[in-house]
Protein backbone atom coordinates (compact mmCIF):
# COMPACT_ATOMS: atom_id res chain seq x y z
CA UNK A 1 0.00 0.00 0.00
CA UNK A 2 1.31 3.46 -0.91
CA UNK A 3 1.81 5.77 2.08
CA UNK A 4 -0.42 8.81 1.85
CA UNK A 5 -2.37 11.30 3.93
CA UNK A 6 -5.42 13.41 3.14
CA UNK A 7 -6.85 15.86 5.66
CA UNK A 8 -9.85 18.15 5.87
CA UNK A 9 -11.04 20.88 8.22
CA UNK A 10 -14.82 21.05 8.19
CA UNK A 11 -17.61 23.18 9.66
CA UNK A 12 -19.96 21.84 12.33
CA UNK A 13 -22.85 21.25 9.96
CA UNK A 14 -24.95 18.40 8.61
CA UNK A 15 -23.22 18.91 5.26
CA UNK A 16 -19.96 17.92 6.96
CA UNK A 17 -21.46 14.57 7.88
CA UNK A 18 -22.32 13.87 4.25
CA UNK A 19 -18.93 15.16 3.03
CA UNK A 20 -17.06 12.96 5.51
CA UNK A 21 -19.03 9.91 4.44
CA UNK A 22 -18.42 10.61 0.74
CA UNK A 23 -14.68 11.17 1.27
CA UNK A 24 -14.44 7.94 3.25
CA UNK A 25 -16.28 6.03 0.56
CA UNK A 26 -13.99 7.35 -2.18
CA UNK A 27 -10.73 6.83 -0.31
CA UNK A 28 -11.68 3.37 0.95
CA UNK A 29 -12.60 2.38 -2.58
CA UNK A 30 -9.29 3.70 -3.92
CA UNK A 31 -7.50 1.75 -1.18
CA UNK A 32 -8.85 -1.48 -2.62
CA UNK A 33 -11.65 -2.42 -0.22
CA UNK A 34 -14.64 -4.25 -1.65
CA UNK A 35 -18.08 -2.65 -1.81
CA UNK A 36 -19.30 -4.07 1.50
CA UNK A 37 -16.18 -2.91 3.33
CA UNK A 38 -16.38 0.52 1.70
CA UNK A 39 -19.97 0.83 2.95
CA UNK A 40 -18.94 -0.17 6.50
CA UNK A 41 -15.98 2.23 6.57
CA UNK A 42 -18.10 5.08 5.19
CA UNK A 43 -20.83 4.42 7.74
CA UNK A 44 -18.30 4.34 10.61
CA UNK A 45 -16.91 7.68 9.46
CA UNK A 46 -20.42 9.08 9.09
CA UNK A 47 -21.30 8.06 12.64
CA UNK A 48 -18.06 9.54 13.99
CA UNK A 49 -18.76 12.76 12.11
CA UNK A 50 -22.30 12.86 13.53
CA UNK A 51 -20.84 12.55 17.03
CA UNK A 52 -18.33 15.32 16.33
CA UNK A 53 -20.85 17.75 14.82
CA UNK A 54 -23.82 17.09 17.13
CA UNK A 55 -22.48 15.89 20.45
CA UNK A 56 -18.97 17.35 20.32
CA UNK A 57 -19.22 20.74 18.69
CA UNK A 58 -23.01 21.01 19.11
CA UNK A 59 -23.31 22.80 15.74
CA UNK A 60 -21.16 25.66 17.10
CA UNK A 61 -20.08 27.65 14.00
CA UNK A 62 -16.89 28.64 15.80
CA UNK A 63 -15.77 25.03 16.20
CA UNK A 64 -14.33 22.82 13.50
CA UNK A 65 -14.16 19.11 12.76
CA UNK A 66 -10.81 17.69 11.65
CA UNK A 67 -10.87 14.63 9.43
CA UNK A 68 -7.76 12.81 8.24
CA UNK A 69 -7.21 9.65 6.21
CA UNK A 70 -3.83 7.90 6.29
CA UNK A 71 -2.77 4.80 4.44
CA UNK A 72 0.21 3.43 6.23
CA UNK A 73 1.67 0.04 7.08
CA UNK A 74 -1.14 -1.88 5.41
CA UNK A 75 -3.82 0.03 7.32
CA UNK A 76 -6.33 2.70 6.51
CA UNK A 77 -6.30 5.00 9.55
CA UNK A 78 -9.03 7.62 9.87
CA UNK A 79 -8.97 10.29 12.56
CA UNK A 80 -11.94 12.51 13.42
CA UNK A 81 -11.45 15.24 15.99
CA UNK A 82 -13.90 17.79 17.41
CA UNK A 83 -13.51 20.79 19.69
CA UNK A 84 -16.23 19.93 22.18
CA UNK A 85 -16.17 19.19 25.90
CA UNK A 86 -15.02 15.61 25.46
CA UNK A 87 -17.12 12.48 25.14
CA UNK A 88 -17.93 10.80 28.46
CA UNK A 89 -17.49 7.13 27.63
CA UNK A 90 -19.03 6.09 30.96
CA UNK A 91 -22.35 7.61 29.89
CA UNK A 92 -22.69 5.61 26.70
CA UNK A 93 -25.19 2.81 27.39
CA UNK A 94 -24.95 -0.64 25.86
CA UNK A 95 -27.43 -0.43 22.95
CA UNK A 96 -27.82 -4.23 22.95
CA UNK A 97 -29.01 -4.40 26.55
CA UNK A 98 -32.68 -5.37 26.62
CA UNK A 99 -33.63 -2.18 28.47
CA UNK A 100 -31.96 -0.08 25.74
CA UNK A 101 -33.17 -1.84 22.60
CA UNK A 102 -36.06 0.57 22.09
CA UNK A 103 -34.05 3.70 22.75
CA UNK A 104 -33.99 6.06 19.80
CA UNK A 105 -30.32 6.99 20.11
CA UNK A 106 -27.00 5.67 21.41
CA UNK A 107 -26.01 3.29 18.61
CA UNK A 108 -23.36 5.37 16.84
CA UNK A 109 -20.28 4.24 18.77
CA UNK A 110 -21.54 0.65 18.71
CA UNK A 111 -21.83 0.72 14.91
CA UNK A 112 -18.38 2.27 14.60
CA UNK A 113 -16.89 -0.54 16.72
CA UNK A 114 -18.82 -3.13 14.70
CA UNK A 115 -17.54 -1.92 11.34
CA UNK A 116 -13.87 -1.16 12.03
CA UNK A 117 -10.97 -3.38 13.06
CA UNK A 118 -9.72 -0.99 15.73
CA UNK A 119 -11.36 2.01 17.39
CA UNK A 120 -9.48 4.32 19.75
CA UNK A 121 -11.47 7.06 21.48
CA UNK A 122 -9.52 9.80 23.26
CA UNK A 123 -11.71 12.35 25.03
CA UNK A 124 -10.18 15.46 26.57
CA UNK A 125 -11.38 18.83 27.83
CA UNK A 126 -10.59 20.33 24.43
CA UNK A 127 -12.41 17.77 22.35
CA UNK A 128 -12.66 14.13 21.39
CA UNK A 129 -10.48 12.27 18.93
CA UNK A 130 -11.71 9.03 17.40
CA UNK A 131 -9.17 6.96 15.51
CA UNK A 132 -10.55 4.25 13.24
CA UNK A 133 -8.35 1.55 11.75
CA UNK A 134 -9.18 -0.88 8.95
CA UNK A 135 -6.67 -3.45 7.80
CA UNK A 136 -6.26 -3.60 4.05
CA UNK A 137 -6.45 -7.12 2.72
CA UNK A 138 -6.92 -6.47 -0.97
CA UNK A 139 -4.86 -4.63 -3.57
CA UNK A 140 -4.41 -0.90 -3.19
CA UNK A 141 -3.67 2.02 -5.42
CA UNK A 142 -1.80 5.11 -4.44
CA UNK A 143 -3.09 8.63 -4.67
CA UNK A 144 -0.92 11.64 -4.12
CA UNK A 145 -0.92 13.51 -0.85
CA UNK A 146 -3.48 16.28 -0.65
CA UNK A 147 -4.75 18.70 1.92
CA UNK A 148 -7.82 20.94 2.06
Amino acid at each position, binding site marked *: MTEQRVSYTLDSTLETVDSAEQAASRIASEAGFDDDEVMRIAMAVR*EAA*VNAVLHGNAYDPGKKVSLAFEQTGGNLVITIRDQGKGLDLEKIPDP*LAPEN*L*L*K*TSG*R*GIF*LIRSFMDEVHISPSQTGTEIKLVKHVHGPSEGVKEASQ
Partner: protein
Amino acid sequence: MSMKTSTRQVNGVTIVDCSGRITLGEGSVILKDVVRELLSKGQKKILLNLGDVNYIDSSGIGELVSAFTTVRNQGGELKLLNLTKKVHDLLQITKLYTVFDVKDDEASAVKSFS
Protein backbone atom coordinates in the same frame (compact mmCIF):
# COMPACT_ATOMS: atom_id res chain seq x y z
CA MET B 1 -30.30 10.52 -2.76
CA SER B 2 -32.71 11.78 -0.12
CA MET B 3 -35.69 9.83 1.06
CA LYS B 4 -39.03 9.75 -0.75
CA THR B 5 -42.28 8.16 0.38
CA SER B 6 -45.67 7.40 -1.09
CA THR B 7 -48.63 5.79 0.64
CA ARG B 8 -51.36 3.46 -0.53
CA GLN B 9 -54.18 1.54 1.14
CA VAL B 10 -54.60 -2.23 0.90
CA ASN B 11 -57.39 -3.89 2.90
CA GLY B 12 -57.24 -1.35 5.71
CA VAL B 13 -53.46 -1.35 5.91
CA THR B 14 -51.47 1.73 4.95
CA ILE B 15 -48.40 0.74 2.98
CA VAL B 16 -45.67 3.37 2.94
CA ASP B 17 -43.30 2.82 0.04
CA CYS B 18 -39.95 4.34 1.00
CA SER B 19 -36.94 4.92 -1.21
CA GLY B 20 -33.52 6.46 -0.76
CA ARG B 21 -31.70 7.00 2.52
CA ILE B 22 -33.05 7.27 6.05
CA THR B 23 -30.33 9.30 7.73
CA LEU B 24 -29.82 12.17 10.12
CA GLY B 25 -31.67 15.22 8.87
CA GLU B 26 -34.14 15.10 6.03
CA GLY B 27 -34.65 11.34 5.78
CA SER B 28 -35.45 10.88 9.45
CA VAL B 29 -37.71 13.94 9.49
CA ILE B 30 -39.69 12.70 6.48
CA LEU B 31 -40.30 9.33 8.13
CA LYS B 32 -41.37 10.97 11.38
CA ASP B 33 -43.78 13.31 9.56
CA VAL B 34 -45.34 10.52 7.49
CA VAL B 35 -46.03 8.36 10.53
CA ARG B 36 -47.35 11.29 12.54
CA GLU B 37 -49.71 12.27 9.72
CA LEU B 38 -51.02 8.72 9.34
CA LEU B 39 -51.69 8.46 13.07
CA SER B 40 -53.48 11.82 13.06
CA LYS B 41 -55.83 10.41 10.41
CA GLY B 42 -56.47 7.30 12.48
CA GLN B 43 -54.45 5.03 10.21
CA LYS B 44 -52.75 2.79 12.73
CA LYS B 45 -51.96 -0.28 10.64
CA ILE B 46 -48.75 0.73 8.93
CA LEU B 47 -46.49 -1.36 6.72
CA LEU B 48 -43.18 0.33 5.88
CA ASN B 49 -41.93 -0.99 2.57
CA LEU B 50 -38.16 -0.50 2.73
CA GLY B 51 -37.41 -2.38 -0.49
CA ASP B 52 -35.83 0.68 -2.10
CA VAL B 53 -34.07 1.95 1.01
CA ASN B 54 -30.39 1.24 0.49
CA TYR B 55 -28.95 3.03 3.48
CA ILE B 56 -29.91 3.74 7.09
CA ASP B 57 -27.63 5.31 9.68
CA SER B 58 -27.98 5.25 13.47
CA SER B 59 -30.33 8.24 13.36
CA GLY B 60 -32.50 6.42 10.83
CA ILE B 61 -32.53 3.34 13.04
CA GLY B 62 -33.58 5.57 15.91
CA GLU B 63 -36.39 6.98 13.81
CA LEU B 64 -37.63 3.49 12.91
CA VAL B 65 -37.65 2.60 16.62
CA SER B 66 -39.45 5.84 17.42
CA ALA B 67 -42.08 5.16 14.75
CA PHE B 68 -42.54 1.61 16.02
CA THR B 69 -43.08 2.65 19.65
CA THR B 70 -45.22 5.69 18.76
CA VAL B 71 -47.62 3.58 16.68
CA ARG B 72 -47.71 0.83 19.29
CA ASN B 73 -48.40 3.32 22.09
CA GLN B 74 -51.45 4.51 20.15
CA GLY B 75 -52.78 1.00 19.85
CA GLY B 76 -51.57 0.41 16.32
CA GLU B 77 -49.08 -1.83 14.57
CA LEU B 78 -46.06 -0.94 12.46
CA LYS B 79 -44.31 -3.65 10.46
CA LEU B 80 -41.40 -3.66 8.04
CA LEU B 81 -41.47 -5.12 4.52
CA ASN B 82 -38.79 -6.07 1.99
CA LEU B 83 -35.57 -5.23 3.79
CA THR B 84 -32.49 -4.87 1.62
CA LYS B 85 -29.49 -6.91 2.71
CA LYS B 86 -27.73 -3.83 4.11
CA VAL B 87 -30.72 -2.82 6.21
CA HIS B 88 -31.34 -6.43 7.26
CA ASP B 89 -27.72 -6.77 8.43
CA LEU B 90 -27.94 -3.50 10.32
CA LEU B 91 -31.05 -4.61 12.18
CA GLN B 92 -29.37 -7.94 12.95
CA ILE B 93 -26.27 -6.45 14.56
CA THR B 94 -28.32 -3.97 16.56
CA LYS B 95 -30.58 -6.84 17.73
CA LEU B 96 -33.62 -5.02 16.38
CA TYR B 97 -34.49 -7.64 13.82
CA THR B 98 -36.44 -9.57 16.44
CA VAL B 99 -38.04 -6.42 17.86
CA PHE B 100 -39.62 -5.43 14.57
CA ASP B 101 -42.12 -7.62 12.79
CA VAL B 102 -40.30 -8.07 9.48
CA LYS B 103 -42.09 -9.42 6.39
CA ASP B 104 -40.91 -10.27 2.91
CA ASP B 105 -44.23 -10.75 1.12
CA GLU B 106 -46.69 -7.90 0.83
CA ALA B 107 -49.89 -9.95 0.59
CA SER B 108 -49.15 -12.05 3.66
CA ALA B 109 -47.86 -8.98 5.48
CA VAL B 110 -51.18 -7.22 4.92
CA LYS B 111 -53.10 -10.29 6.14
CA SER B 112 -50.97 -10.45 9.30
CA PHE B 113 -52.41 -7.23 10.72
CA SER B 114 -55.04 -7.89 13.37
